[in-house]
């Protein structure tokens, strides 16, 4: 009876959701980590530079 096959239908969609959502969350996480790494590296570089008058991109959270 076709109705008993619903378990296959739902497992297929569930797997799709889990995998795609999982991948999305994973990517978001990686992005966040990398962005903060970049910020940290930039701050370190800014700090170790000798003070020179230059237009500094406002990165210190002026916004």
């Amino acid at each position: 009876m076709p109705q008993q096959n619903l378990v296959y239908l739902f497992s297929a969609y569930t797997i799709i959701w889990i995998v795609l959502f999982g991948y999305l969350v994973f990517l978001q996480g990686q992005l966040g980590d990398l962005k903060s790494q970049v910020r940290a590296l930039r701050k370190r570089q800014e700090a170790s530079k000798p003070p020179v008058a230059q237009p500094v991109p406002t990165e210190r959270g002026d916004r």
Partner: protein
Amino acid sequence: MSVTSLPRTREVDRVAPSATPLIDRVLQGALLVSFLASLYLAFIYAPTEAVQGDVQRIFYFHVPMAWLAYLSFFVVFLGSIVYLWKRDQRWDIYARCSAEIGVLFTTLVLITGSLWGRPIWGTWWTWDARLTSTLILWAVYVVYLMLRSYSSDPARGARYGAILGIIGFADVPIVQMSVVWWRTLHPAPVIQLEGGGGMPPQMLVALMVSLVAFTLLYAYLMRQRVQIEQLRSEIQQLEESEG
């Protein structure tokens, strides 16, 4: 690598790290809407198929993912060609990210195809033309990802990847043809999974909306994944300049 060849990180990202660029917000919204719509269309709006029953509804996600997989690998192909021609690292990044997303979609196509086939054919796998050529496609691009990981020198990895990206995609039509001939000259019990010519319009609508949803998903995933590679590249540069 000089700074001028670094792929441009968006100015917005640098200035306000926590704000999401407008286009990503738009994509997220569009994704939500289109996926909700396609779920509704696939489960409620589309009529139940006469022979297969409700299991057939897997079709509405299975087929678009297959199409998107082919699109992703085409992007790998294009990116590979342009990279070999121009040696612009951005194109290598596009190729590599698209391959990863393509493998993801292809894996899901295989899994959902198997889950669909089990109740219909009574078996988890069958060597019909479409499943077989999808499996080969999957294998080629999994090897692509391995090739990229196993290259210790990134420039060489990019070059080798580009070569495989071109040859692999050039092979796709030939693989398709040979597998189809193999199956026609050696017929195995094959039941048409797809609706074919006699698809009622509601099914077509559900399919098309789902296709739109997945295309948007591809675009969004690409943006995220490419940005990750660009940030990695930037980090490497920053670390190198610190010495």
